[in-house]
């Protein structure tokens, strides 16, 4: 242990602790911008500089370890001056038009400038000019060179968390910026669109392509019937932007809000998730019993970030992906066919919007394999949770004062199995619940699958079901996924069924979710909220969803029927990651 003094307070911390974390343990918050615990402690912004007695220069709190009897001043005149001028310098190269910024109110730079009472930047504005400031407008991921403060967090997140290395330093000298690595343009890159760079950006240097206008246009078009589906992981996260507890913001309130906005019907992607399970569990059992999974497992395919990752990094394993479409796309295909029939409207009149915790879903719904000539795109527009909450704010809809309303039938009915899709391990568990039933004829007690719910990033379990031994693994975060694939390829690991989610913690931690201004990783909390919802539900297995049963009876026949194959399965080989935009 090391004892030091911070702002006249004695603090004892383990050896190797940084000044930043030592101060935090004593409830002294040292302002910082580039620092991101576990990923980025490169001391670039110099905002966390503190004064340490007997040291010549200012010392960065984020990456300097404490030593015995160190005396630190976080608010000495020199520390104040350093912090202020460095923030002013950052502001001079930041587009400070906060009024038109998606991160206003949730921006770390804005907060720090406000906190420091900077009401006047003494340096002239220097923003990138010419084509240096240009980015594509069609790509789902948007980089704003004028807002980027070069904290390098996106580079580190993409390198360390996701191992995809999309971002890198570009150029040298005063024009050094962050751009797509190896002088590529983003459209030609193998970006997975996980969106983790966005959720870890302290400003609006990175954001999603804003598609709210497309939704407003649809809502204003009298020839269209706007309908909406809400992804599982959105329900325990959307309320954060309003400072509400998830319990105070149930699904019914979202339904009420969306209807007030003008949507004709509000549905639940959990229905699509239940449907996915019906197909995927059956697909798995078929591939498992045929011996097709002897060398490599079947991978889940609900996460489009993961699908892009696998296709981009390990194209030779593309065939191991489940051919089942994701819940969003299954929902879309059924909405534009069965639902349209039930509603008695032509498919092209339905305008389906998805509210997703995800950036890659924006690309998924644009894939050539997710649209047909006769019915057009199965999902018309994908909004992130953040875009959805921006629309709520625009309409001055206050969730506190909304009365919960039921979702629409038939595609608003779902089970607990569909709900947990939003948490890491949820797809696997939901599939196993149904596989168990298929193999044993009985519904399982979901508690037997608790081993794959929480724990380390890679969780393994072996289940014996009706004489069959199924080796499962669950992993989230793409660097972890890469390590798993490495183990599979070198024969160090063997599984039959593997669930992969691109974002750590699964969709709960998705790249389209609300951003914590305090860099809090909220995937775990949101995920356990989903498990609580599951526990409260009467129906906890997808095959028990009465509307799913009705869908098969009335329309599809049985899982993996010809019709199901046509509508609910896809060809992952039919498109290329780099040719989407």
């Amino acid at each position: 242990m090391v004892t030091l003094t911070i702002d006249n307070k004695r603090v004892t911390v383990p050896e190797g602790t940084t000044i930043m974390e030592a101060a935090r343990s004593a409830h002294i918050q040292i302002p910082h911008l580039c620092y991101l615990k576990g990923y980025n402690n490169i001391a670039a912004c110099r905002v966390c500089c503190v004064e340490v007695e007997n040291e010549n220069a200012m010392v960065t709190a984020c990456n300097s370890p404490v030593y015995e009897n160190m005396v630190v001043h976080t608010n000495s005149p020199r520390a104040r001056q350093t912090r202020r001028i460095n923030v002013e310098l950052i502001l001079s190269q930041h587009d400070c038009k906060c009024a038109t910024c998606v991160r206003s109110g949730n921006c770390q730079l804005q907060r720090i400038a406000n906190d420091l009472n900077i009401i006047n930047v003494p340096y002239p504005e220097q923003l990138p000019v010419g084509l240096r400031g240009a980015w594509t407008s069609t790509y789902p991921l948007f980089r704003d060179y004028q807002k980027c403060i070069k904290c390098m967090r996106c580079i580190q997140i993409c390198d360390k968390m996701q191992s995809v290395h999309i971002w890198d330093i570009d150029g040298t000298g005063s024009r050094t910026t962050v751009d797509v690595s190896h002088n590529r343009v983003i459209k030609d890159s193998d970006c997975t669109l996980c969106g983790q760079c966005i959720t870890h950006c302290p400003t609006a240097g990175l954001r999603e392509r804003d598609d709210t206008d497309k939704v407003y246009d649809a809502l204003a078009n009298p020839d269209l019937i706007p309908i909406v589906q809400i992804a599982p992981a959105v329900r325990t996260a959307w309320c954060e932007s309003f400072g509400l507890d998830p319990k105070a913001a149930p699904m019914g309130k979202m339904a009420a809000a969306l209807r007030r906005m003008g949507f004709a019907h509000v549905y639940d992607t959990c229905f699509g998730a239940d449907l996915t399970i019906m197909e995927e569990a059956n697909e798995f059992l078929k591939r498992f019993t045929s011996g097709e999974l002897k060398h490599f497992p079947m991978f889940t395919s609900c996460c489009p970030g993961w699908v892009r990752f696998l296709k981009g990094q390990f194209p030779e394993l593309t065939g191991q992906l489940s051919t089942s479409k994701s819940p969003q796309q299954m929902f879309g295909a059924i909405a534009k066919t069965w639902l349209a029939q039930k509603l008695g409207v032509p498919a092209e009149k339905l305008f389906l919007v998805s509210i997703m915790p995800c950036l890659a879903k924006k690309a998924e719904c644009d894939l050539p394999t997710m649209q047909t000539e006769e019915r057009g795109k199965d999902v018309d527009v994908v909004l992130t949770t953040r875009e959805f909450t921006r629309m709520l704010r625009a309409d001055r809809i206050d969730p506190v004062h909304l009365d919960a309303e039921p979702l629409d039938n038939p595609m608003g009915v779902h089970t607990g199995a569909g709900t947990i899709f939003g948490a890491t391990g949820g797809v696997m568990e939901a599939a196993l619940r149904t596989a168990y039933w298929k193999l044993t004829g009985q519904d399982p007690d979901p508690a037997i699958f608790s081993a794959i719910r929480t724990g380390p990033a890679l969780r393994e379990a072996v289940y014996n079901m009706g004489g069959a031994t199924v080796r499962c693994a669950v992993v989230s975060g793409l660097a972890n996924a890469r390590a798993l694939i490495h183990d599979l390829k070198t024969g160090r690991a063997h599984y039959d069924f593997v669930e992969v989610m691109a974002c750590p913690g699964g969709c709960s931690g998705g790249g389209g979710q609300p951003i914590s201004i305090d860099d809090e990783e909220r995937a775990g909390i949101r995920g356990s909220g989903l498990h609580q919802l599951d526990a409260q539900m009467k129906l906890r297995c997808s095959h028990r969803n009465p509307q799913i049963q009705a869908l098969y009876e009335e329309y599809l026949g049985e899982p993996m029927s010809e019709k199901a194959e046509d509508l609910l399965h896809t060809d992952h080989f039919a498109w290329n990651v780099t040719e989407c935009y």
Partner: protein
Amino acid sequence: MTRLSIETPTSAEVVLRGLYRDIERRISASSPGLCPIDMSLSFLRLCHAQTCGKCVPCRIGLGQLADLIETVMNRTATLETIDRIERTARVIADSADCAIGYEAAAMVLRGVRGFRDDYEEHILRGRCITGLTHPVPCVTVCPAHVDVPGYIALIREKRYDDAIRLIRKDNPFPGVCGYVCEHPCEIHCRRRMVDDAVNICGLKRFAIDHSKPMACPPNQESTGRTVAVIGGGPGGLTAAFYLAQMGHSVTVFEQRPQLGGMLRYGIPDYRLPPEVLNRDIDYVLTAGIDVHTGVSVGKDIDIREIQSEFDAVYIAIGAHSDKKLGIAGEDAKNVVSAVSMLRAIGENRIPDFTGKRICVIGGGNVSMDATRTAKRLGASSVICLYRRRIEDMTALPEEINAAMAEGCEIQPLQAPDHIEKDAEGKVAALWTRPQIIGKYGSDGRPRPKDADCEPVRIPCDYVIVAIGQAIVTKPFESIGITTCRGAIKAENSSAVPGLDNIFAGGDAVSGPATVIRAVAAGKVAAANIDAFFGFNHKISSSIEIPPAHFTSMPPCGRVNLKFHTTPDCVGDFTLAVDGMTPEEAHQESSRCLRCDHFGFGSFKGGRETEW
């Protein structure tokens, strides 16, 4: 009113002079990989500030040029902008009244022509082709990429054994390099921005002098693959060492009785004591390498036999043959080549120069070795003759100074003309043609030419020729090895084109170079031979590097090693340079700015722990 007054500089002038010196050092300490256009733009702004303001091309033109280049950097330019820049620069170069203007424009022209593709990349894609590839300048510049800040930090903590272990991850010859490395690492040392480069080489020597002999880590699991290394010099032994560590079975063929190559048979003992060399070689051999000394490929064994017997072959034969002057009288008795003289000494066949007058021809390090050795062998006079000026000599300045301090004479601007023989056919005198230094050649160096003077006769007993070394490639040509300018043709990967399992590197490929470049070539060959076998063995180090101190030492003089050179060195082959004292080593190691931790290092990682 006084008619004249003594001019004293104003305080502004004094400060500015200091700044000029600072900026000179700073520019030389630039990190490799900077944008060439951005740098030349900055230089152009500097040039513009030097303008007196009289003439149009310089006063207006340089500023307009800078603005045009600025648009390239800002990506508001078009491809026509490059033509505009080129035309403008050409006119300024043609029409400026003085060097301030025309030299500045010439710099721009060199840039537009020299890195035009970079200009185009900036204009078309707003990107720069170059970029910082490694954050730590000394590590980047070191051909073997030794973890310099790592071992300096260990020396500061007095962990000398760990420092040596860390160096050996990338370079199995820390002892040799501590004594004779040309230390390119110091050129870009960021400490030069503060005061002067850290004495990296001196610190390495201190570490080796204060560390215990050790054995290498255990070799990785045996692969059953066999490699023949031809040449037991630093390059061959480096490859042999790492290949053995990777688990391959290595056999070294060395034509001389002992290992070490030029280190043993070329570098005199007063620069590199044999104990130091032996210690490094002993360490290398702990990896379990099969050594055949006294085996000459081409004489004792055929290369075709080796090629068929081993899975891969690394040719690292160095450059051990001499080059001829090509002047009349060169066939005289007592005309010797420096390499053969030094080799004889290495083999304990020591010539006696007592009372003899020696002329040495050449200006490189080998020439200095021959000069200083001749003095030690008792010569009554040693004159080193060089075609160009002393400042053009390629030998290290400290070697030249030491030679002079030891009483040898350096005669610059003397081109050998012919050698006069006496009746017995022995050397009687060396005739030279005095030179005048002239215009710059395409290599960027001023060229000498014959001066308008009479030839000079320098009476002497021996002429030692040190004008370069040649490579004996003949024995290798039977398997299809080809040469280019006398050196073996091989790729940067050390693969020999067209030959499947043959690799080559070091002096034999690059021409005579330095120890550290031979080591680097050996390292490259080891990695690529391993890959050629289909493996990806890693050489790694798990030594924990001490954390950086928060704030660096304020400006502080660099500790230079002390040469004890006197004309009384006859017969004295003991070390001519003293190492640092512990006090000096501690102070010098504290001067390291820890670029592995501060600056770009903290972002991109200051170290590779394996290769």
